[in-house]
């Protein structure tokens, strides 16, 4: 890791150069409520101080909501052509919590096999992170995801009159050398950075009692009343999964053209909260009720992954809380498990 300083007066110049040199994706105000990560052509469109979490997390750039995987042609022989799309891009202004979400995706799409569609894009994505105020529903601190150790090329932290740059890759180094007027960080810069981080951590107001959840979950597991109450207003709409930066489930579909000769296989974001997810051949559904499904979602995120891989499948970004019209709230639910156990 290299540590550099970029003076504030040189920030605009740096970003403008990146916008003109690269395909540049950054947060832009979408409407009166949300921001979205979209291509930026002009610095004035870029707004990295978004208050609410952007709707679709950056996963949409690497694992798009719908994506064609292969093209085929049926004849005497069946011709199959993989469709792998990628181009070099800069993703600018993603926060630490979302970088950790992306790190989770990197890991999931390379654990049992390398997902080429994902990694072709990931390899060409230059990630320039930047801190921002945690949104109201963000509990990343409790999940240990408020700070990004890796997963970025450059990470910018805004101090009073300068940016503290953490440069993690040779690509990041190349970019800063070429486009930014930087200098080495000194002891006083490090001190200010540490102070900033202490301050920053104190801004996460929402806390989840995750520490004993692993064991406490067993206690609540068969408590039908608990799950009935927790899922009462659930629409089975899947929004909580679809906006989640660590939810990776997808459904693969066949789309043959009317000539019945050529077609493609595509994948689309799926959700364990919708009934079809648990439907298998023969018509049996192993998670037929919304109670089953909510239980499964919490279990997958906060327990199964701990069992299998020693990590949570949640970075605490709070998007699922924001997105749920039924006000189902993972923080409240986990914290209330604690109460049930102590009662």
């Amino acid at each position, binding site marked *: 890791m290299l540590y550099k300083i970029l003076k504030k007066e040189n920030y605009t110049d740096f970003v403008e150069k990146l916008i003109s040199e690269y395909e540049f994706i950054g947060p832009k105000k979408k409407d009166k*409520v949300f921001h979205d990560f979209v291509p930026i052509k002009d610095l004035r469109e870029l707004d990295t101080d978004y208050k609410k979490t952007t709707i679709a997390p950056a996963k949409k750039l690497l694992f798009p909501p719908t994506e064609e995987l292969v093209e085929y042609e049926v004849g005497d022989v069946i011709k199959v052509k993989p469709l792998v799309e990628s181009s070099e891009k800069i993703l600018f202004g993603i926060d630490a919590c979302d970088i950790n979400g992306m790190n989770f995706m990197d890991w999931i799409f390379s654990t049992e096999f390398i997902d080429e569609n994902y990694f072709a894009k990931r390899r060409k994505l230059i990630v320039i992170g930047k801190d921002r105020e945690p949104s109201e529903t963000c509990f990343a601190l409790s999940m240990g995801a408020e700070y990004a150790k890796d997963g970025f090329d450059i990470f910018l932290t805004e101090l009073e009159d300068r940016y503290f740059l953490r440069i993690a890759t040779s690509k990041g180094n190349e970019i800063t050398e070429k486009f930014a007027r930087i200098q080495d960080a000194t002891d006083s810069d490090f001190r200010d950075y540490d102070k900033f981080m202490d301050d920053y951590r104190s801004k996460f107001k929402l806390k989840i009692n995750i520490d004993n959840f692993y064991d406490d979950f067993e206690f609540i597991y068969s408590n039908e009343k608990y799950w009935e109450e927790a899922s009462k207003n659930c*629409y089975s709409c899947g929004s909580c999964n679809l906006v989640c930066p660590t939810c990776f489930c997808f459904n693969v579909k066949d789309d043959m053209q009317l000539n019945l000769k050529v077609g493609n296989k595509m994948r689309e974001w799926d959700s364990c909260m919708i009934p079809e997810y648990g439907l298998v051949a023969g018509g049996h559904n192993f998670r037929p009720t919304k109670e089953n499904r909510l239980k499964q979602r919490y279990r997958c995120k906060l327990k199964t992954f701990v069992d299998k891989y020693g990590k949570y499948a949640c970075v605490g970004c709070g998007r699922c809380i924001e997105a749920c*019209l039924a006000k189902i709230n993972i923080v409240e639910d986990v914290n209330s498990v604690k109460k049930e156990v102590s009662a």
Partner: protein
Amino acid sequence: MSKPKVGIFGFTGCGGCQLEILNLENYILDLVGAIDIVHFTEAITEHSDNYDIALVEGAITTKHGVERIEKIGNIAKIIVAIGSCACNGGLNCLKDLYGLEKAKELVYGDKKDWIGSIEVKPVDAYVKVDYYARGCPANRFEIVDIIKALIVGKKPEIPNYPVCVECKRNGNTCVYELGMTCMGPVIRAGCNSRCPNSGAGCDGCRGPIDDPNINAEKDLLAEYGLTVEDIMQQFSLYNAYRGKGIKQKIM
């Protein structure tokens, strides 16, 4: 594979769903290449009673309509209802909220007895419907998907999840966030969240999913200041039919 013979029939409705088929433009030649259209109320004058698949648009609202749909039911091996009117009666059912006689009187005055209007029913109130291409109008690409699935002998994949799923895939800001209301959480997707994509709430033209959480939706709408009457009206626009054939009673 021999081409299946298909009849496309219109009953009471605006004719917009048949028009959607004509609007396939770039695909229309492929379509007539894949199927043999022997009847198409809105598009061709020829007619034959020899067909395997019937695509039926419109609700059944007259005695004559009942006779026609029953005949189609006797001939077709597969019936696909297309559009909201055929699938669950659609807008036509608003008429029956007045009561049949009252409605006839309102519209036709003292000539009301000349009119053979009966209580509005969807196609499946009279004949077995195998597949539903819902929506107002039906999504023409979904109609094509159903036809393709039938030709290759697969079960068509019709979503049974709420519109919110497509909304999220499309990266829309939820219209509730913008201070408006939406039926999306209880309505079947498959329209590619057409209305929310343009910033409008879903009116429910595709009807409810199999297991809609109506109580949650009522709570939510009430929270946004809607009275019970407003809520009923929202639900009724496309989903006023209460009779035989419909799986969910939405209110």
